């Protein structure tokens, strides 16, 4: 599903924030990416959703070498990825409905299908009465539900969550993680970046730990292992 081969990355002419990163994640797996603030968790996710390119090495996604694909080939691939951000990144002047509908409309779905799917999902996440509300008028919890709905509406095969528990209370955070687990059980590959090691440990899932620009795979109940799995 995802494979990094000796990936290095820097922003502009800055120092390498990621060095010699190699790992492979299988379809329908669930991984955490951990590390302290500034360790490069968000950068790893950006490489996966292709908003940044590696400065060296190769990134494979959906069996394609995406690190060298031309720009115009990326949008169709991105439509198979749902991303949830800590600050939600909703579009503030669009209604809740239009925010959630966006991925479907960008994929060229018919308005009939869009209306049906978005109505169902927003009702399911308990926002049936807030279709027309703009995100700034919603509570933090409601905004996160809109963000989650937008990430899953197009049935992505990969869900990335960047610090999804940062801006909501613990109960809400656990509910989200349970939801992601549920989607993972249904076959979706899930990657959650968090600086909260306890959270990751508590969930009993393997985690990729970033430190000093390097990565290590830590299996639950196992010591740190510096040997990268390779295909």
């Amino acid at each position, binding site marked *: 599903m995802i494979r990094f081969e000796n990936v290095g990355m820097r922003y502009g002419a800055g120092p390498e924030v990621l060095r010699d990163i190699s790992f492979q994640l299988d379809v329908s797996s669930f991984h955490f990416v951990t590390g302290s603030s500034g360790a490069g968790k968000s950068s790893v996710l950006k490489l996966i959703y292709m908003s940044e390119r590696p400065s060296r090495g190769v990134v494979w996604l959906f069996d394609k070498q995406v690190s060298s694909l031309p720009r115009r080939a990326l949008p169709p691939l991105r*439509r198979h990825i749902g991303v949830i951000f800590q600050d939600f990144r909703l579009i503030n002047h669009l209604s809740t409905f239009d925010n959630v509908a966006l991925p479907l409309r960008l994929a060229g779905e018919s308005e009939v299908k869009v209306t049906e799917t978005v109505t169902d999902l927003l009702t399911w996440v308990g926002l049936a009465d807030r279709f027309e509300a703009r995100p700034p008028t919603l509570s933090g919890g409601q905004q996160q539900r809109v963000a989650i709905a937008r990430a899953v509406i197009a049935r992505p095969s990969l869900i990335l969550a960047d610090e999804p528990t940062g801006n909501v209370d613990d109960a809400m955070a656990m509910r989200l993680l349970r939801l992601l687990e549920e989607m993972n059980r249904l076959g979706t590959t899930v990657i959650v970046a968090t600086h909260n090691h306890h959270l990751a440990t508590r969930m009993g899932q393997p985690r990729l730990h970033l430190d000093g620009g390097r990565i290590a795979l830590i299996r639950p109940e196992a010591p740190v292992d510096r040997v990268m799995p390779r295909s």
Partner: protein
Amino acid sequence: MSRGFDIPFARDGSVRFLPWIVALMVYLAGLALAGALLLDAALDDWSRGVSGVMTVELPPAATEQAGDIAVAPVVALLQATPGVASVKLLPRAAVAKLVEPWLGTGQAIAALALPQLIDVRIDPAHRPDFAALRAKLATAAPGAVLDDARLRFDRLFDLGMSIEVMTVVILVLIGIAAVLTTVFATRAGLAVHQNVIEILHILGARDSYIARQFARHALGLGLRGGVTGLVLAAATLALLGHAAAAAAILGPGLRLVPAITLLPWQWSVLVLVPIAAAAITYFTALATVHGALARMP
């Protein structure tokens, strides 16, 4: 997508000035174009009026009979000249009619020695050699004056043509200014909306989708500015037309203000100006966004 914009254009000041600049440009371009159209029509009229005729004027003869004798060889000479279509001696009565506004119809005129005028129609496609003709006339009838209206107007035509060329240059410059303005406004918009653009990209939007949103928005601004500019230009032309009419009441022939009356087809040419402006804003915004996004990773 026929819905509104995903990018919150309504909230940014970066392009708010664009309609006004476009309005100003369309106003100036519209007036320049109207002037050129009027000038072109006038040049056309003059050209048609003067290029086919010339006049040969013979000095007054003592008697009508003497006059006829002097005229005959000149008429023959003219008829033999290549490029001359027809030759007609104006009868004395016609010449008298010509001077009537100045001299009246009284007895005096009958006694007056009038010049003899020969009206010559020439073939505009094969104009005669005027220098040679003038030389021959000088020997055949000393004192004869060959008056080619065309020659007198040529300098005026040249002036008119250079004004038209300048108008085209001005229109092109206004077009370039419109392109540059749109480029800068669009770049500013790209910077302001960087965040939303990034979100749209992450959600799977193509560059062309984002470019079309910017272009559609620019088109709206361009149309709004273009219509404003055209309305203002039309109002100005109408005002000048009224002023001309008012001046005409003061006295016939008193032309303080040039008469401005555009024909329907000339108006439809003016309507093309805001349409061109809108097209410029649309395609410039489209190209600017495509260019900027293509440089992203």
